[in-house]
């Protein structure tokens, strides 16, 4: 168990820069998830932490010790690979024991650790089997077991669930979370699945094009995304990003979504939401509203301080069972709402929707950075 400090990590292959100046500080026991689309550099960053690739610049400290010049064998880091990477010629027990043997740990201690890990992961009955005789989920457990047996200072998980089928993936996700809560170990976990990131992380690092877009708790990343990329990457359905114009009339600011000759759609902003938009009076911004901030307006209902109504046309209705996703047309812009599963809507109908603006986020229309 240890702290991990990444200090200005850079990586380039010739003229191509893969990682731009990444700095992350992890406290003891944190579960950091590196998330981003493929090619964002998250796997390269993980390999650099593992010692499998050398950074072109920057330094890494594990529990205060500079590990930058060390090889992977000397870092006291264990890794679980996407393909499980179980040694095909060794039994499960031998696989788990292998790292201990390589670190010249005493034979009796080795046997003890293998037994302990096997019990923890409920793979005791598999110990004498070869990896090819195991199912995907069992292989995954063995791979995790091999990492645990070493009792390293840091665990790395490289997309460990992406080779499992959907149901097993959910189960293993819960299990990894349980394991973390139990062992209180420091973990760095790479995934391209934003739901995995949200559910597992104590902190999420969202990456794109080798640049760290945002580092924050799942709550922060979801509710206060640093830019439009993070806003649309995290969450499903993705956050609605609307072109909007800020106009001022005597202190109060109004946000309008009207484009061209469409009927007016917009509202006067509550004071809290209006504050960061003052310098943007008379200009365009991008307004971000989550699908779940929308509900159907009922006649005669009094609106809360942060609630406004917005007229929109119903375009497509997609029931998912737990709730119904409705694609709306707000003055020519597409807008997805997450509504009750039993709403009764007709495509093409023009209706009033109630929007909760307490979590409204706005972005600069040029830089796409969060206004705060």
């Amino acid at each position, binding site marked *: 168990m240890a702290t991990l400090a990444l200090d200005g990590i850079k990586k380039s292959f010739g003229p191509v820069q893969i990682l731009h100046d990444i700095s992350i500080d992890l406290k003891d026991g944190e579960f950091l998830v590196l998330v981003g689309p493929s090619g964002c550099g998250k796997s390269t960053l993980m390999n650099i932490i593992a010692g499998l690739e050398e950074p072109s610049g920057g330094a890494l400290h594990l529990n205060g010790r500079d590990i930058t010049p060390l090889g992977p064998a000397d870092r006291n880091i264990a890794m679980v*690979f996407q393909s499980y990477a179980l040694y095909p*010629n060794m039994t499960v027990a031998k696989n788990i024991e292998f790292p201990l043997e*390589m670190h010249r740990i005493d034979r009796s201690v080795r046997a003890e650790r293998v037994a302990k890990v096997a019990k923890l992961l409920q793979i005791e009955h598999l110990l004498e089997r070869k990896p090819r005789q195991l199912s995907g989920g069992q292989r995954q457990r063995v791979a995790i077991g091999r990492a645990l047996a070493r009792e390293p200072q840091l665990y790395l998980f490289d997309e460990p669930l992406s080779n499992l089928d959907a149901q097993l993936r959910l189960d293993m996700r819960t299990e990894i979370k349980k394991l973390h809560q139990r062992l209180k170990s420091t973990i760095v976990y790479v995934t391209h699945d934003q739901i995995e990131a949200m559910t597992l992380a104590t902190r999420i690092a969202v990456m794109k094009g080798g640049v760290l877009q945002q580092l924050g708790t799942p709550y922060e990343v979801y509710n206060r995304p640093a830019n439009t990329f993070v806003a649309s990457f995290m969450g499903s359905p993705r956050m609605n990003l609307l072109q909007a114009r800020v106009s001022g009339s005597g202190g109060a600011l109004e946000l309008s979504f009207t484009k061209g000759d469409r009927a007016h759609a917009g509202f006067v902003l509550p004071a809290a939401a209006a504050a960061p938009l003052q310098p943007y009076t008379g200009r365009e911004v991008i307004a971000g509203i989550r699908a779940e901030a929308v509900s159907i307006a009922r006649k005669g209902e009094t609106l809360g301080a942060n609630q406004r109504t917005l007229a929109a046309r119903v375009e497509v209705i997609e029931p998912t069972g737990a709730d119904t996703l409705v694609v709306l047309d707000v003055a020519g812009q597409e807008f997805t709402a997450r509504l009750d599963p039993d709403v009764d809507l007709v495509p093409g109908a023009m209706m009033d929707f109630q929007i909760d603006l307490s979590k409204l986020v706005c972005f600069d229309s040029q830089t796409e950075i969060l206004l705060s």
Partner: protein
Amino acid sequence: MADTRDKGLVAGRIFLYLVLIFLALLFLLPMYVMLANSFKPLEEIRNGQLMALPIDWTTAPWRSAWSTAQIGVQATGLRPYFINSFLLVIPAVAISTMFGALNGYILTQFQFRGANLLFALMLFSVFIPFQIVLIPMAKTLGTLGLAGTVKGLVLVNSVYGIGFTTLFFRNYYAAFPVELIRSARMDGARFFAVLFRILLPSSSPIIIVTVIWQFTNIWNEFLFGASFSDFSSFPLTVALNNLVSSSTGVKEYNVHFAGAFIAAIPTLIVYVASGKYFVRGLMAGSVKG
């Protein structure tokens, strides 16, 4: 309709098998001639009946070829040279296979500058004709004090084999899962631990291919044997040549046939015993199961 088509099919099959059996017999014919004549007394061969089975079966030619035929200065038969060939083949195969594995490992798992160029150069060594290296190699062996010894031949054949063995192992390891190697390195395995604990235990198909290939080539190799050995260190191929081409006395064809067959036995055994692994191993890299 179906009937006639079936008949056509059966007729085609029969024709096909007849052709195949005929060809198989044709290919087996030299072996038959060798075996049949090696069990004949010399007079029966002199009568010109090469294709006939022996009338008066005898194992004398075999015994003569093995232990009493005049090859070098003494009438020792092929036996000492048979032993020489084993003393040559076993270390030479082991050394060249080991270096092939090591080279393949380094060339595929360490992305160093010039790795591909180095491999291309090693591959080039496969295409160098033996004759070109004879004089430089003689000089090298002389300098090392290994001229005319079995050790010298071991060195020559090992060096010459490394090009092939590197090619085999390099291509096999190029298809080896990278994550396994990375995992082993994370687990604390160092250079040789990765090779001996992870790569080699998963390499049996390619090891078998390499061993068969090297064994056959070195066992049958003649030019180096003839150039770099003396009476005490002749490999079997050279001894066989001396037996057959000795210009004194009567040509004992039956002994020659027996000797040639003795020389061929080890490679035959290797092929029969592991031929199916050979085919399987050659396919191993290309098809992932």
